[in-house]
């Protein structure tokens, strides 16, 4: 009997300890924050957590194994080398542009090796290709050069597994398909456009993207006219979606000077040129999203462009601030947001990678700030050193780090999945259905901005206008508050209409009576004066008495 009691106590204690540890493990390894209505950073729940980190070493060992079908050479590097880009193909396979090792690695969604392309051949090309390097030297590409890649910076894969590789140092775009597990067959090459419209001497392409019609968009950091656009056959079409010039004090000053300066002075003035965008992604509907990697830029930091190159985000977005809102100076270095890559997930969430802080900023399709996660403490899992690229698959987010040479996989937490559910319902217009989910979000983070907005809208649709006003006030949105306020006022008027009418009629009657009496001089002024005087005297007496009493009491205490 005693033993039984003891064991039950022990079990209880064990259960308690287990409970405690489970509580401890629920705490995130790093702090997360979010922005409130005033763009102040406030602590928040983590929407994503690291579920895996993949360095691909086990998989890449096969490249050295002569018995393997992936065998390339005994000295083939088995780590990634400053990989700049990767792409999740429509068939859910990863294509990693291994920049430092001049190869393309292809894996499935669980990072099992599918292929590693090192040799690229098959194009019967008798033309001689010369490129101009950074110092202005003309270099002729020989046959061996054309069969390999040199610093592939970007990759895009279409639904037929056709690869488009930005072969940066050979200054070309390679369009190819798999021929064996280690080689690829080139279908087409895109070189520097030989036209006067293209006025840059080099063609250091870094990113590439292809739309549904097969048009190829290429980003060259030296070209600020937008993306260079080729047709499927390789002819140069034009430039696509140039950024605008950010209006700064210097730009305004230059514009004024330009009006009054002479020819010689004009030549010495700096030209106001827009900054080029750093990266892009194409969403399911065929819109191209771009990010600009200049620190703290506010003009065209993120764009969603239609096929004509117009930014339609200006019409559809609720918000135009992206990334961190303030730059931080720490140990003498200033850290400012630099948006380096963008990925649109299947559920239309916009994920933007900040190179400086290693943070991922997630927005919904209307660009409302949802979740912020990730950081740059490279010693810790989930921290980044050189975050270069971001991709999404389902709810997971993959970050490619160029110095840690690994891929970090983020998965949704419970909080994050609630946010996703709620915002999906919210943006589809199901405010009432979203209400319960928003309440779950608010239980975990009572200051979550979109949850407050969503709750206000849901309560408005449920005709709880007082509640809607309260939440709109908390979310600090005047339009939502105003709508709820108007409806509330309407309701109040309707419910108490008789009362208001009676009060108004009474006031009018009183007004007329007073006017009438005044006209006849029959206002009993003496009576009123006596009445007021009486009340005044009584009141004065009471006050005097009270003061005297208080004094006496105080005096008594003093004695």
């Amino acid at each position, binding site marked *: 009997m005693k033993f039984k009691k003891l064991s039950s106590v022990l079990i209880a204690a064990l259960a308690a300890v287990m409970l405690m540890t489970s509580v401890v493990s629920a705490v995130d390894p790093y702090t997360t924050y979010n922005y409130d209505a005033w763009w102040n950073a406030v602590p928040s729940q983590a929407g994503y957590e690291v579920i895996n980190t993949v360095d691909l070493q086990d998989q890449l060992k096969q490249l050295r194994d002569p018995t393997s079908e992936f065998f390339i050479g005994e000295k083939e590097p088995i780590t990634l080398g400053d990989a700049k880009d990767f792409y999740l193909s429509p068939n859910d396979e990863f294509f990693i542009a291994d920049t430092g090792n001049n190869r393309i690695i292809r894996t499935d969604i669980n990072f099992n090796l599918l292929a590693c392309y090192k040799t690229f051949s098959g194009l019967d090309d008798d033309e001689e290709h010369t490129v101009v390097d950074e110092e202005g030297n003309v270099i002729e590409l020989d046959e061996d050069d054309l069969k390999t890649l040199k610093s592939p910076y970007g990759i895009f894969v279409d639904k037929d597994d056709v690869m488009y590789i930005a072969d940066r140092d050979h200054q070309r775009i390679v369009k190819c398909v798999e021929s064996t597990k280690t080689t690829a067959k080139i279908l087409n090459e895109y070189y520097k456009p030989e036209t006067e419209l293209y006025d840059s001497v080099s063609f250091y392409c870094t990113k590439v993207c292809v739309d549904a019609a097969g048009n190829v968009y290429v980003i060259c950091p030296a070209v600020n006219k937008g993306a260079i656009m080729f047709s499927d056959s390789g002819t140069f079409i034009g430039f696509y979606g140039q950024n605008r010039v950010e209006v700064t004090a210097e730009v305004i000053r230059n514009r004024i000077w330009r009006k009054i300066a002479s020819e010689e002075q004009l030549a010495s003035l700096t030209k106001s040129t827009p900054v080029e965008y750093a990266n892009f992604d194409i969403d399911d509907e065929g819109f191209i999203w771009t990010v600009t990697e200049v620190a703290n830029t506010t003009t065209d930091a993120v764009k969603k462009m239609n096929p004509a190159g117009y930014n339609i985000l200006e019409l559809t977005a609720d918000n135009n601030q992206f990334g961190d809102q303030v730059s931080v100076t720490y140990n003498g270095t200033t850290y400012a947001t630099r948006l380096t890559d963008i990925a649109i997930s299947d559920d239309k969430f916009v994920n933007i990678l900040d190179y400086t802080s290693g943070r991922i900023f997630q927005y919904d399709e209307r660009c409302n700030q949802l979740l912020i996660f990730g950081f740059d403490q490279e010693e810790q899992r989930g921290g980044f050193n050189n975050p270069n690229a971001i991709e999404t698959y389902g709810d997971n987010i993959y970050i490619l780090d160029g110095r840690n040479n690994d891929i970090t996989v983020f998965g949704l937490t419970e909080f994050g999945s609630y946010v996703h559910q709620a915002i999906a319902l919210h943006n589809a217009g199901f405010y009432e259905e979203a209400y319960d989910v928003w309440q779950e979000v608010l239980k975990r983070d009572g200051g979550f901005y979109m949850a407050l907005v969503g709750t206000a809208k849901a309560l408005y649709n449920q005709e709880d206008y007082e509640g809607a006003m309260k939440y709109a006030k908390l979310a600090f949105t*005047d339009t939502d508050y105003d709508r709820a306020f108007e409806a509330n006022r309407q309701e109040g008027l309707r419910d108490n209409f008789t009362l208001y009418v009676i009060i108004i009629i009474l006031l009018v009657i009183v007004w007329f009576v007073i006017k009438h009496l005044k006209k006849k001089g029959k206002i009993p002024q003496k009576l009123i004066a006596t009445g007021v005087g009486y009340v005044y005297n009584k009141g004065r007496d009471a006050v005097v008495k009270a003061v005297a009493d208080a004094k006496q009491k105080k005096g008594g205490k003093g004695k």
Partner: protein
Amino acid sequence: MIYDMKPWQWVKHVVFHPTEGYEDMRWKKAGSIKIAFFIVFLLFCSQVFSSRYGGFAYNMKAYSDVFNIVPILVQSVAYYATWVVSNWSICTLFDGEGNMRRVAIYTAYALVPFIVCNFLSTAITYGLTLDESIWYTAISQVGLWWSVVLMVFGMKACHQYNFTMTIVSMICTVLGMVLILCLLALVMSLFQQVYVFFATIYTEILYRVRS
């Protein structure tokens, strides 16, 4: 009309009779400096009210920002004081008849419509939606321009100018106000530096004495 009115009745008379009210008041040598100061106090109150209260959609700042009394104090009391000083200084040079006491009284009386409409417009925002903001704008604009008209006639009566001269003197007064406020800012920063200088000397001496 019998101009045998109590001081507060004079305020009403002046406000509702812009053209002759001030002339009557000057003729009767009426107008109370106590009431004038009370009106300035009300001006301060109305500024506080309009910056801290009002419907949420109309005055969101009031629901989030920290209340700072200094700008409001400057906007009401300091502006009034500089106006009076500047107007008196300018008009003394321009052969105006008014003394400083009269300038202070006439200026304060002219502010009454502005104050009343300030209170009123802020109060009605509790019952207005954003679409109906025209009412808010209308009331505050009526108050403002009524006060401006009163101010013109007040200064005209106060200094016995013709209309052109009144406008010229008022423009000069505004310039004078700017000058006074600039000088005040300069003097204040100067005194701050002097203060900092002596404070530094004090701390230096303190360190030496202690060590």
